[in-house]
């Protein structure tokens, strides 16, 4: 899913009603393939087994229906171009990019804040455009260039101007949203190396920060832009 921006909360949003259908209690964040490295055979059996009717919870107070998680398909070996390197990796049809990065390629810099396209902690670049990796299927990025926060430093290990500006401006607080903020900022500066503060905040508005470090992130991006333009 390409990133959307958070809009100001308006009347309609505030009146969003609480219907039971809206409730994401039986969350879908369970990841089918986690750890298949240790148990490929077991995993495949598990997948087949889960195709069978699910017993379910006899007691269902609220009429919630737990989504059954049958997959019925297996991994395919694909080549991915991540941070300038071609990596061969087994990928399930429904596997999201964030999971491939974090659990198969060891790139844990890309964070999972919500796993449902709400927060931007998982932001990566796909062909230089910022995307939510939790809402992008890995199969969709074959033959494309994926850049994660780990891929920003140059070959001398120097930080990207956005990263060094974030350090100077003390932009991160807890740091959990930081890789996402960095990636959104890098994507913006690739398109527009001389943005206004307003343009920066619109570009970064798909990245939530519960610490509320927005002001310092904006300072950081403005400062990085200056540095890039100085050359």
């Amino acid at each position, binding site marked *: 899913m390409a990133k959307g921006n958070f809009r100001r909360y308006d*009347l309609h949003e505030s009146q969003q009603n609480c219907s039971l259908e809206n409730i994401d*209690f039986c969350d879908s964040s*369970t990841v089918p393939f986690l750890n298949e490295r240790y*148990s490929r055979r077991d995993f495949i*059996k598990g997948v087949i087994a889960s195709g069978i009717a699910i017993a379910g919870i006899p007691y269902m107070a609220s009429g919630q229906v737990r989504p059954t998680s049958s997959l019925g398909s297996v991994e395919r070996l694909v080549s991915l171009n991540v941070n300038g390197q071609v990596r061969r990796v087994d990928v399930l049809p429904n596997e999201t990019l964030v999971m491939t990065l974090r659990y198969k390629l060891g790139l844990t810099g890309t964070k999972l804040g919500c796993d449902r396209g709400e927060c931007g902690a998982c932001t990566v670049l796909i062909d230089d455009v910022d995307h939510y990796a939790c809402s992008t299927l890995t199969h969709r990025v074959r033959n494309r260039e994926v850049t994660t*926060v*780990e891929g920003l430093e140059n070959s001398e290990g120097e930080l990207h101007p956005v990263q060094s500006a974030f350090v100077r401006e003390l932009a991160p607080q807890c740091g959990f949203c930081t890789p996402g903020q960095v990636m959104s900022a890098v994507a913006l500066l690739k398109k527009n190396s001389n943005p206004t503060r307003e343009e920066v905040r619109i570009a970064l508005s798909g990245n939530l920060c519960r610490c509320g*470090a927005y002001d310092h992130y904006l300072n950081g991006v403005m400062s990085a832009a200056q540095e890039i333009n100085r050359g």
Partner: protein
Amino acid sequence: MAKIIGRDFIPSDIHSKVTGRAKYAEDIRMDGMLFCRLLKSPIPHARVKSLDYSEALSMEGVVSVLTADEVSQTPGPSDNILTNEPHFVGEPILAVAAVSEKIAQDAIDRIKIELVPLPFCLDPLESLRPEGPNARVDGNTIVRGEGVKEIKWKEEDFLEVAGELPMGEPGVEWSYGELERGFEDASLILDESFVTASNAHHSMEPRSAMAFWQNGKCHIYGSTQSQAIVVPGLARYIGIEPEDLVYISQYCGGGFGSKGGAYPLMAIPALLSKKTSRPVLMRISRAEEYFLGSARIGFQGRIKLGFRDDGRITAVDLYIVQENGPNTGFGDMGSAADAVSLVYTPMAMRYRGISILTNTPPRGAQRGPGQNQIAAAVEPLIDKAAKRLGIDGVKIRRLNAPDSRSLYGGSRNPVTSAHLREALDKGAKKFGWNEKKSESGSRKGSKVIGVGVGQAFHSAGSSGFDGLVRISTDGKLHIHTGVGNLGTYSYAATSRVAAEILGYRWENCEIVRGDSSKHLPWNNGQFGSNTSFTMTRTNYVAAMDALQKLKELASISLGGSWEDYDIENETVVNKGDSNLSMSYGDLAVKAIEIGGRYSGKELASDDLNEMTIRAVEGLAGTGLIGVARDNLDRTGTVPALAAGFIKIELDIETGAIRILDYLGVADCGTVLHPQGLAAQVKSGAIMGFGMACTERHFYDSQWGIPGGVGFYQAKPPSYLDVPLELGWDAVDIPDPQNPVGAKGIGEPLMGCATSALLCAISDALGGHYFNRTPVVPDMIVNAAAGQEQSHSPLQVNTQ
């Protein structure tokens, strides 16, 4: 003149944060690692009648199951690890460990569970009615020292005027001064009921945890704001001694009170790992976080305020019914009352409160627990009074503001220093209060300007913890800290005190933190805005101990008495003869040579905490050890105070709010780290804006299921909800009871912004007071159109 304190620096962990190298709990991988999933209660209160997990256990890939019967249970209303009587939707009943997360979840789906539904309660006032439901089978409130009890009010207690909080038998009560006389002397009395909604913490990092056992020790990677303070509590949950727990929390993706200390969930992967002899990762999802995470306590309250003609508050009568969640909850209502006693210094005050258990997501401390709700409730009422009395909003606050002689709470404790008046003055000047105020109410189309000022307080300092530093033979200073990494950089700012005292260049110092196997001292937790006060003291006393030892060792090596020596450029020099000098590194060698208390082989004092003693034992003989308990004087509550100033544009047709300008001013004593403080003033305000206008929990009233369970529903502010730039300042007057003058500040920085924004909304509406948080757009539209609100005055669980 301070060389280090009060200056900006680059914290050592920030590089890892911008490069993605920082490892949070869910970033840890180990060979053979299992994944765990939880079976959670789908209903707000139930008893497990039967549980059949045989099919789950027989599935390929499922390794183990952990039930409530296998974990330690503490009597109610404590928070459980796993339970057979869930008290909220999403409370974990059982956990499964499997080779993949999918298999673990599939196994959970095959468990046959029968639950007997029990009565549940979402509204404290309902529970107080004679026939009202209780959140727990044994009662609806907690009586200190006695556990869960039942308190019901009488039918006639509820017969009072509609819209006003009924006030039956309270659970706690205190008072001072002559209340009745205070109200007699008042020329204006306000008697107002109010509601403040509960809201989720939604820290960006869910509370995932990873655990494994090695050589009889349990290792846990967790997500907590604190480091040292977590260890004893977590060890207790797991059922081991604190020295058998290696607790690692180098990074924490936000806590805001919800991850202050040990929480029971972390014990689940630890116990499953013990059972399976394999590492176990428990990922908690965003969705789950809204159910089994934590939330701010909500209030239904009533306050009677008496004002003299000049605006001075003569008397306050405060009653709070606290919505406590199903478990231990927190002491918000008492803190709220204490805050009122200090921020407004009423001449007489009575506080009554009752905490009622509810079957809602567990409640816990959230940034300014109690203090910020009451700021949100009372500050607009101060404006209401000011308007009636024809007094300016800053002036009436100045008049009632505390100073360093003011007393705190029902116990009338002294305070260490209070400079709210100075904060108001500084803020009003910098913000241009008078000029901006003159624009208030001006209208363009449907947009009206509103201006507001708000204040908040939190007690911000503790004492009695330990400090530990080590000088190694290369002359480097290693500052061991048990402070957690919650994102404020206080672990570093407080550690820098040791460098200051010992005259170190910061480049020659290293902070040791984040892992209990690294010999960390017993420090307080990173909650309650206390770190800046508490751990500057511990680092000060440890550095003073090291300084004394450096001088003694120099006198032993070079002759004379220790008093003949001074420090300069990381060297100890004889005051009379500068040729007699020794570097810190050489003195560390000497310390090892002599041993004893110099190298930590012996301890000079017997008042250190067990954790610190173990840390010193671990470091003994590796350098010069400075270690001490903070026995410095502290004779009062340490107040953190803040004032916020705001200008908004309110669209009365849509209820949309645009914040045009914000300035926060902190009274936090000496500023330790200006850039860090700036970040806190601004970001605290942003969290405050969310509390004022968007964030709240709400429930399906028929089934008791939480509805605000996504960012888009619970609504923490985004970039677009806040101004492009925010302003900050600090009073910067040292606190006399801290060796470097520092006090904490994190929490009131939020409350002053919440209350300022609420005041500005009311100002834009020409003095309409909602007596409720959050003030959502439809409430504004209703108010602007002169329509009735869709909720009744004391209703909780509104949208």
